[in-house]
C-alpha cells in the first residue's frame, strides 16, 4: 500500500500515463538484484532506488579504490578501502530511506547464484567480466528471471533484455568467451548511460508498460553519438536455453 509520503515522493512518475499508482505499487513490491557495485551498478541502483523499487540487493566482493572514482558515483573519496556494497548501501539508504537495500559482499559463483537470485523480480547485469555474466545468465534462465545485460568499453556500450524462454539468452549471443582486457578504458558517462537504460528496462518490466529491448541489442557510441538496434535471435541448440541446455 502506498503511503502519503510515497504519493508525494513519486508524484511526478505516478503522473505518467500508463504507470500511475498501480505501477508505483508494483515497484514498491518488487525486488531487484544489481550484480556489481561499479560503474554500471552505482547509477543503476541509484535510479532504481529513486524510482521506489522496494528491495534492492547489491552484490560485489571488491573494495573501493581511487581509480574507481571517475565513474562509480556511489563511492566517494572518504570511502576508499571500504567494501563497495557497504559504501553503496549507505548512499542508497540516504537517497531513499523508504526502501530496503541489502548489501552482499560476495562473489557470484555457480554454487550460490541460484540461491541469491531466487524469487527476485529482475536481475541487472552490472558485472565486469564474462565468467560471472555467464553464471548469472545460466541462473536467470534456470529460475525464469528477466536478466538485463549491459556492458561498456571506452565510450561505447551495449544493452539487451533477456526474458528466459522468449528471447535469446547471453549464451545464444556469445557461446564462447570473448577476449577481455583489464583494466579497460572507460569514461564514467558510458556506464552511466548504459545503466540508466538498464534501470528503465527494469522499471518497465516490473510495472508492465512500454516496449522492451527484447530480441534486440542496443549499441551506443558516445564518441560519435551513434545509436543502433541489432536484431538478435535465439540459438535452437544453445547450451543454456536451447536443446543443448538444462532447460
Amino acid at each position, binding site marked *: 500500500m502506498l503511503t502519503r509520503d510515497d504519493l508525494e515522493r513519486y508524484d511526478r512518475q505516478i503522473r505518467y500515463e500508463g504507470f500511475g499508482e498501480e505501477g508505483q505499487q508494483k515497484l514498491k513490491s518488487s525486488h531487484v538484484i544489481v550484480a*556489481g557495485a*561499479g*560503474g*554500471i*551498478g552505482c547509477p543503476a541502483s541509484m535510479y532504481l532506488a529513486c524510482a521506489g523499487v522496494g528491495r534492492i540487493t547489491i552484490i560485489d566482493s571488491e573494495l573501493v579504490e581511487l581509480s574507481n572514482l571517475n*565513474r*562509480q558515483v556511489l563511492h566517494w573519496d572518504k570511502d576508499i578501502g571500504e567494501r563497495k556494497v557497504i559504501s553503496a548501501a549507505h548512499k542508497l539508504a540516504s537517497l531513499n530511506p523508504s526502501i530496503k537495500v541489502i548489501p552482499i559482499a560476495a562473489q557470484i559463483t555457480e554454487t550460490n547464484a541460484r540461491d541469491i537470485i531466487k524469487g527476485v523480480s529482475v536481475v541487472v*547485469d*552490472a*558485472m*565486469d*567480466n*564474462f565468467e560471472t*555474466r555467464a553464471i548469472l545468465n545460466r541462473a536467470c534462465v534456470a529460475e525464469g528471471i528477466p536478466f538485463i545485460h*549491459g*556492458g*561498456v*568499453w*571506452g*565510450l*561505447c*556500450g*551495449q544493452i539487451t533484455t533477456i526474458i528466459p524462454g522468449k528471447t535469446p539468452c547471453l549464451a545464444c549471443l*556469445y557461446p564462447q568467451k*570473448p577476449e*577481455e582486457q583489464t583494466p*579497460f*578504458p*572507460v569514461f*564514467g558517462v*558510458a*556506464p552511466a548511460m548504459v545503466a540508466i537504460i538498464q534501470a528503465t528496462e527494469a522499471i518497465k518490466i516490473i510495472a508492465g508498460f512500454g516496449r522492451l529491448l527484447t530480441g534486440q541489442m542496443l*549499441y*551506443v*557510441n558516445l*564518441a*560519435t553519438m*551513434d*545509436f*543502433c*538496434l*541489432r*536484431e538478435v535471435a535465439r540459438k535452437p541448440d544453445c547450451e543454456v536455453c536451447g536443446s543443448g541446455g538444462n532447460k
Partner: protein
Amino acid sequence: MKIRLKSFFHFDITRVFDQNQIDLAGDRPTLRALLQEVIQKSDGKIQVIEPETGYIDTEYFVLLNGRESQALPQGLETELHDGDEVGIGMMHFWGGG
C-alpha cells in the same frame, strides 16, 4: 555518393573519419568497397573483413540500413545507393565499469 556511417569500436573513430559519412567514388560501389575503404583509412585497425576468407570477421557486425550483411541476398557485393546507412561495430563491449 555519400554513405552515412555509424560506428561502434573500442577506439575513437573520429580520429579516422571526422564526419559521419563517407564519400565513395565510382558509379556502383558495393558494401565491400565501403568496408575496404574503412579498413584502409583506419590503417587496418578496423579489420572488419577477414583477409583469408573475404567474409566479415566474427568479432564484427555490419548492418546496411538496419539489415545484417549476412541477410542481404548479394552479401558484401550489394550495391550501395546515395544516402544508405551502414553500421559497423564490435560484437561485444564487456566491461562493467
